[in-house]
């Protein structure tokens, strides 16, 4: 039986242990593009869409965290309580593909694929998200920064399934911005998530390096300047520092030089938005 649709996490991890080369699929919006174009020929597939806890999310205000199961759709994150708790994630979710993609696309899929252009990943980075991994016999939680290790490479072991993420709430502004060739249905050329917590800025960059990049030197600089001292020229310098921390390449989607420019503009813009709130 090459296609499995387990209805519990226990069954899913056992199936993966017994079929270590199986493809894990939630919505399938990434995998099926590769299958349709004959780049991949899956022999065994484990669909994760029926695992109940993967579809759950909850906001725990007491602990100050949000837990999102790995199959929760982007459509769910765009509106309502989740969007209020995590506005940057809602903004990122709204830029994913089209409504048809957002109806099935999920954080589990974005993390599994781990493309530097993954729209949700800068948000998970800036918000210090924790990724939960479950195997038949073990369970562990990995900070996002240790999870993504390269372009389309992550530290998930072959027998592990991404079960969900825990995202700490911030007590300051958070936002996301992305540049692409059009507004809808576009893969990002550069993206930035900026979040403020306890008066400190965190900034993460997408599509401008082999992994999502936390611009930590820029963070230190702006935090030493102090948010209360942000003027347009300070924001400009912040953007230039962020730009210097990016490590983009030329590819079919953009040039490295344009990406460097764009990521700096986005960082400046987000910082100004953040302090104006």
């Amino acid at each position, binding site marked *: 039986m090459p296609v499995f649709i387990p209805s519990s996490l226990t069954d899913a991890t056992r199936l993966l242990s017994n079929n270590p080369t199986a493809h894990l*699929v939630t919505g399938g919006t990434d995998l099926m593009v590769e299958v349709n174009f004959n780049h991949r020929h899956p022999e065994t597939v484990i669909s994760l869409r029926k695992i109940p806890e993967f579809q759950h999310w909850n906001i725990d205000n007491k602990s100050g965290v949000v837990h999102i199961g790995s199959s929760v759709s982007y459509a769910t994150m765009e509106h309502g309580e989740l969007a209020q708790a995590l506005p940057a994630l809602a903004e990122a979710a709204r830029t994913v593909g089209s409504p048809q993609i957002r109806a099935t696309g999920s954080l589990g899929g974005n993390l599994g694929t781990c493309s530097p252009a993954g729209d949700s990943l800068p948000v998970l980075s800036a918000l210090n998200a924790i990724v939960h991994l479950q195997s038949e016999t073990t369970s562990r939680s990995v900070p996002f920064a240790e999870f993504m290790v390269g372009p389309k490479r992550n530290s998930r072991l072959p027998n592990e399934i991404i079960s969900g993420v825990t995202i700490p709430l911030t007590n300051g502004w958070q936002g996301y911005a992305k540049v692409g060739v059009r507004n809808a249905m576009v893969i990002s050329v550069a993206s930035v998530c900026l979040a403020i917590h306890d008066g400190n800025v965190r900034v993460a960059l997408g599509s401008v390096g082999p992994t999502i990049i936390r611009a930590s030197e820029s963070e230190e600089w702006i935090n030493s300047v102090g948010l209360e001292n942000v003027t347009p020229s300070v924001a400009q310098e912040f953007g230039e520092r962020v730009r210097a921390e990016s490590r983009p390449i030329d590819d079919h989607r953009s040039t490295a030089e344009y990406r460097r420019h764009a990521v700096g503009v986005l960082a400046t813009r987000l910082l100004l938005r953040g302090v104006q709130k």
Partner: protein
Amino acid sequence: MRELEHYTLTINGEERQVADAWIGESLLYVLRERLGLPGSKGACEQGECGSCTVYVDNAAVCSCLVMAATAVGTQIATVEGLNKDGSLTDVQQAFVTEGAVQCGFCTPGLVMAVHHLLDHNHSPNEQEIKEALSGNICRCTGYGRIFAAVDSVISVRKSTSS
């Protein structure tokens, strides 16, 4: 060596058998090539154009990006199931009346997207309509007549419900 699969899909309320299928086949392929339901169109096969839009458990999705064998146990609805007696739905009729169809290739997907929008939002504003249809690409009409068709359905539904 590709293993073949036998499975059952529920499409427009009917159980349909799929025999000897490769597991990598998309729902779009299975609908069109195996089950005789060619209403959903295949164009980009990468989720960009929306011509293949169907509903899976009431969510509007691109059938080209659904692995058919993983859709076992879901309720699938295609454009053929909108009106089983073959008559036009109000959205389809509005597309005809407003001239929202030129080559027609995108039309089934757009009709599915419009029905889905109006089922969930009875009075969408212009921005909401544009966003809801942003996953459906039409290269003929420039969208003006498609938006006119949506507007006409909204106003007709409003006047008949009040």
